[in-house]
């Protein structure tokens, strides 16, 4: 069976791969959006935190025998703690100045993290084997579905929707949204805003690390994996607009799919298609697909 002259198995395989990438875009852009909303900082270090998440999982398995399932919990906690320290010691000092300094500071942090991991592990990739329960593939009749990839898409959608629920439907989320609108007023109502800000950055960092652990078995773990991804995620964020949580999830998944489709039909353009879409969206709807016009 073929679609547009391409075997359907290869076609669906690329689509699934695109969806897997899209899941990472969604999780990372979600974290970026939440951090930006409350802290007003564009977190360039997000890619580095994702990279550290993957390395924590890898080191955990190699050195301490921590298995994949435990890593899903351990890595976000470790990286979240790193995030809390970064927020308390460095970011805290920048809330009164122009937001570009936040970008520059986190850019510096990303360089530091990359350099340290490069020194320790070199530039060649490490591989992380797929956990046994998820290895192999399921034959669906029309395609062979690799179990782990299906799990990545499923898990990240659950995590994204969970985050959406937490922010849009719970009391804690209401505080968070109120803090985004007017931190001084929320503080006056007796909410400890600085702690909330700290935990938000920690949670965003943890989310990036979780994406890193999920990614570890499907990619080569290298010190540069984060920075290469984060620039695409920036484009995703610009396309979606940072206004809406569901918007950034949808944009992330959709762009992953588009990238997968491009790989099928015109592979040379697959690395630039997201940027081209960003340029088009900026010309038509500068605030982004889900952003609010000022």
């Amino acid at each position, binding site marked *: 069976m073929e679609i547009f002259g391409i075997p359907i198995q290869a076609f669906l395989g690329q689509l699934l791969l695109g969806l897997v990438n899209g899941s990472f875009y969604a999780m990372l852009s979600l974290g970026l959006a939440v951090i930006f909303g409350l802290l007003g900082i564009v977190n360039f270090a997000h890619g580095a935190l994702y990279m550290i998440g993957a390395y924590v999982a890898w080191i955990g398995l190699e050195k301490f025998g921590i298995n994949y399932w435990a890593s899903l919990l351990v890595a976000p906690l470790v990286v979240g703690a790193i995030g809390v320290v970064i927020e308390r010691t*460095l970011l805290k000092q920048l809330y009164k100045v122009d937001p570009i300094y936040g970008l*520059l*500071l986190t850019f510096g942090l990303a360089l530091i993290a990359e*350099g340290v991991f490069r020194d320790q592990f070199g530039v060649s990739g490490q591989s992380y084997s797929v956990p046994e329960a998820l290895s192999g593939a399921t034959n669906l009749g029309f395609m062979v579905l690799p179990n782990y990839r299906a799990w990545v898409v499923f898990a990240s959608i659950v995590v994204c929707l969970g985050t959406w629920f937490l922010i849009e439907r719970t009391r804690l989320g209401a505080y968070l949204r109120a803090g985004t609108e007017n931190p001084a007023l929320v503080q006056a109502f007796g909410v400890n805003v600085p702690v909330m800000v700290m935990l938000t950055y920690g949670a965003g960092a943890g989310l990036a690390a979780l994406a890193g652990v999920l990614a570890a078995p499907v990619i080569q773990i290298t010190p540069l994996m984060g920075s290469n991804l984060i620039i695409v995620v920036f484009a995703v964020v610009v396309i979606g607009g940072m206004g809406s949580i569901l918007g950034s999830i949808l944009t992330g998944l959709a762009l992953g799919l588009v990238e997968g489709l491009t790989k099928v039909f015109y592979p040379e353009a697959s690395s630039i298609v997201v940027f081209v879409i960003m340029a088009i969206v*900026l010309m038509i709807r500068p605030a982004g697909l889900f952003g609010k016009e000022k």
Partner: protein
Amino acid sequence: MSSSTAASSSPDLARDTSAELARYSRWALYAGLAVLLAAPFVGLYPVFMMTALCFAIFACAFNLLLGFTGLLSFGHAAYLGAAAYVTGWLVKQAHLPPELGVLAGTAVAGLCGLVIGLIAIRRQGIYFAMVTLAMAQMIYFVFLQAPFTGGEDGLQGVPRGKLFGLLPLEDDRVLYYVVLAVFVAVFLFVIRIVHSPYGQVLKAIRENEPRAISLGYDVDRYKLLAFVLSTTLAGLAGSLKTVVVGFATLSDAHWSLSGEVVLMTLLGGMGTFAGPVIGAFTIIGLQNFLADRVGSWINVIIGAIFVVCVVAFRRGFVGELRAWQQRRRGR
């Protein structure tokens, strides 16, 4: 002067201080120029000095945008890289003389700046930075795959040739003075721009964009022109760099270089004339000095300088010096 300090009404003092500052900075500029003119004769490695001067041009171009217009472009390496490739290809494959190669490279960078600028100025502030970064990454991927760039290897062995068919650029000293002349011209050009009525409008946009709009200025056009000017000069730096070192590679267009030029400007002092030059020499010097000694820790060091600058040293060398002098005079 003594009378005005004793019974100082404050405007007098201010005028006094700024006159003195202007005098200091003029002498500092002359001293700097003297050092640069004498450099080949005091044993400074000429290729290093030329590379540093190229990056100084790059940082000055970037500063025109960040320091004087308040726009943070996070993708300036793309323009430097585009010009570097175009010049390298034209001089090596099409056997054009160096001056035409540099001219064409610079023009292409300006053209890229025009197209990307049109897209990027549709967003403000932090989004502007993200858009420019993303567009630069797109250019990077194009270079990675385009047939004429030599992929991962880059364009190697670009000949220096003869300037106007006369001056043999193979001679390091001759090329050094050519590069220095271009650098001085760019430096003066940036000062001229900033002090022109156009430059004053740019400053107004930096300080308060809504007010500039309500005063009737077509802000987008001013910003676009500043962006094109800046990317063109960045291209000039890239073209010259190719002539100097004889190659153009992917690292010329990589995002890490876009970050480095921000750091040069920030470290030296953004919104000052000499700051980016001092910053460029510091960073290039540091990289040269440390490259063999620390290996991959160089990125850690650059990152750490970034963090320290942002947290504790936002005015940069020149800005801090100026503030210190003003404090001293104010007492």
